[in-house]
C-alpha cells in the first residue's frame, strides 16, 4: 500500500464525484420525463408512437450500456453534423464535450427502464380514482396531476431509487467515451506507478458511499410519500 499515493490521489478522485453526480442527475431528469411520456403513450395506446415506444424500450433493455455509449458517441456527431449542414451551418463537432453523448445514451436508457416502472405504477392506481376525480368536476389534467400522479409516484419511488443507483454505477462506463468521471480519473492516476489496488479501493469506497447515501435518501422519500399510498390499490 502506497499511502503517499492515496493522500495525493484522493482529493483528485473526489473532484470527479460532482461530474458523476451531474451526469446521473441530468440523465435521470431527462430520462424519467421521457419515460413518463412513453408510459402514458403506451397506456393510452397512441397509434404509431405506442408501437415505436415498444420497440425502443425493447432495444434499450436488450443492448448493453457500453454498446449504447459507443453508438451514441459515434453516431450523434454524424447526425449533428449533417443536421447542421442541412440548415446551412457548419457545426464544429470536436467542440462538443463527450459528456453530452454519455448523458444522451444514459438518459435514453433511463427512459426505457423508467417507462416500465411508471407503466406498472400508473396501472396499479385504481380506475375508480380517476372516475372519482371526474365526478367532483376535475378535468383530465387536474385528475392526473392531483390524484393519479402522486399515488403512482409513491408506488414508483422504490423502483426509481433502484434504477437511479444503477445509473450512477452505469456512469462508470462513460470512461470509454472519454468522460473523466470517478473511474476514469482513478484509472488515469493509477497508471504511471501502477497503483491499481489503492486507486480501486478508493473508487470502490466512493461508489459505496454514494450508493449508501442515495439508498437512504430514497428510503426517506418513500416514507414521506407513504401517505399517498393508502387508497392506491383496489
Amino acid at each position: 500500500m502506497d499511502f503517499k499515493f492515496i493522500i495525493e490521489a484522493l482529493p483528485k478522485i473526489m473532484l470527479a464525484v460532482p461530474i458523476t453526480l451531474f451526469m446521473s442527475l441530468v440523465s435521470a431528469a431527462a430520462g424519467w420525463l421521457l419515460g413518463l411520456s412513453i408510459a402514458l403513450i403506451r397506456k393510452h395506446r397512441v397509434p404509431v408512437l405506442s408501437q415505436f415506444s415498444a420497440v425502443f424500450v425493447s432495444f434499450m433493455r436488450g443492448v448493453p450500456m457500453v454498446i449504447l455509449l459507443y453508438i451514441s458517441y459515434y453516431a450523434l456527431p454524424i447526425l449533428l453534423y449533417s443536421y447542421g449542414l442541412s440548415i446551412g451551418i457548419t457545426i464544429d463537432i470536436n467542440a462538443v464535450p463527450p459528456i453530452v453523448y454519455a448523458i444522451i445514451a444514459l438518459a435514453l436508457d433511463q427512459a426505457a427502464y423508467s417507462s416500465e416502472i411508471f407503466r406498472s405504477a400508473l396501472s396499479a392506481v385504481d380506475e375508480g380514482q380517476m372516475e372519482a376525480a371526474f365526478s367532483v368536476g376535475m378535468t383530465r389534467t387536474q385528475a392526473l396531476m392531483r390524484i393519479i400522479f402522486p399515488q403512482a409516484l409513491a408506488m414508483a419511488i422504490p423502483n426509481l431509487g433502484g434504477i437511479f443507483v444503477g445509473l450512477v454505477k452505469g456512469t462508470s462506463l462513460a470512461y470509454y467515451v472519454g468522460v473523466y468521471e470517478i473511474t476514469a480519473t482513478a484509472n488515469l492516476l493509477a497508471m504511471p506507478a501502477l497503483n491499481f489496488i489503492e486507486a480501486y479501493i478508493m473508487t470502490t469506497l466512493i461508489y459505496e458511499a454514494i450508493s449508501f447515501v442515495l439508498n437512504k435518501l430514497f428510503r426517506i422519500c418513500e416514507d414521506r410519500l407513504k401517505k399517498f399510498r393508502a387508497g392506491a390499490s383496489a
Partner: protein
Amino acid sequence: MENTFKPATIPGYIPNVLRAFPVTMEILLISLLISLALGALVTAAGIGKRKWPKAIAGGYIAFMRGIPTLVLIFLIYLGLPQLAQVVGIDLTGVSKTVFIVACLSLSSSANMAEMMRASYLAVDKGQKEAAYSVGMKEFTAFRRIIFPQAFGIAIPALGNNIIMLFKDTSLAFAIGVIDLMGKARAISSASYGANRLEVYIATGIIFWAACIILEYCSKITEKIYTKGRKKATS
C-alpha cells in the same frame, strides 16, 4: 468531417462478430452457475436465524449492489494480483476469462440472492407448517413443498437476472477478453475505426436478438411451469 456511415454494411458484420459468441456463452453459463450457487449460500445465511451469517449476507449484498461492475472488474483484475503478491501468491498466470467469470459471478450473486429471498418469503408460511404437520423434516419440506413453489415465483426475476448478466458479459472486453464486444472492437480497430459505428450497431443487434430470445424462453418456462399449479402466495 464527412459522413462515412454505410448502414447497408451492418448485416455483413453480424456473422463476423458472432464468431465470438461461444466465448460470451461460456462466460455467461459458468458465471450463471456460480452466481446461483453463491446466491443460494447468501440467501441461506440471510434467512437463517444466526446473527453473524445474517449480517455478513446483508453486508455482502449491499456491497455488491453498490459497486459498479466495471470497478469490480478493475479491482479484481488489476488490484487483486498486486495484493496477492504482497502475501506471496502469484496470480499472473490466471487467465482473463477466469477473472471475468469471478467478477460477474460475484456481482450477479447479489441479485440472485435478492431474488431467492423474495421468492422464498413469497411462499405462504402455512405451506411449511402443513408440510411439518404431515411429518416432513425441514429439508424434505423445503425440497418438496417450498422450493417448487418459490421457483415458480422466481422465474420472471431469474429471466431478468440472466439477461442482466448476459449484458454485463460485454464488460469482458475491458480486460481484453475477445467476447462479442471484444470482437467488435478488434474488427473496428483492424479498419482503424472506419467501420466502428456499423460494427457496434451490428453487435447491438446481436445482443438485442439474444435478449429477445432469452425473454421469450423465460415467458415460456413460466407458462409451462406454473400451468396447473395454484398460485403459491397467500
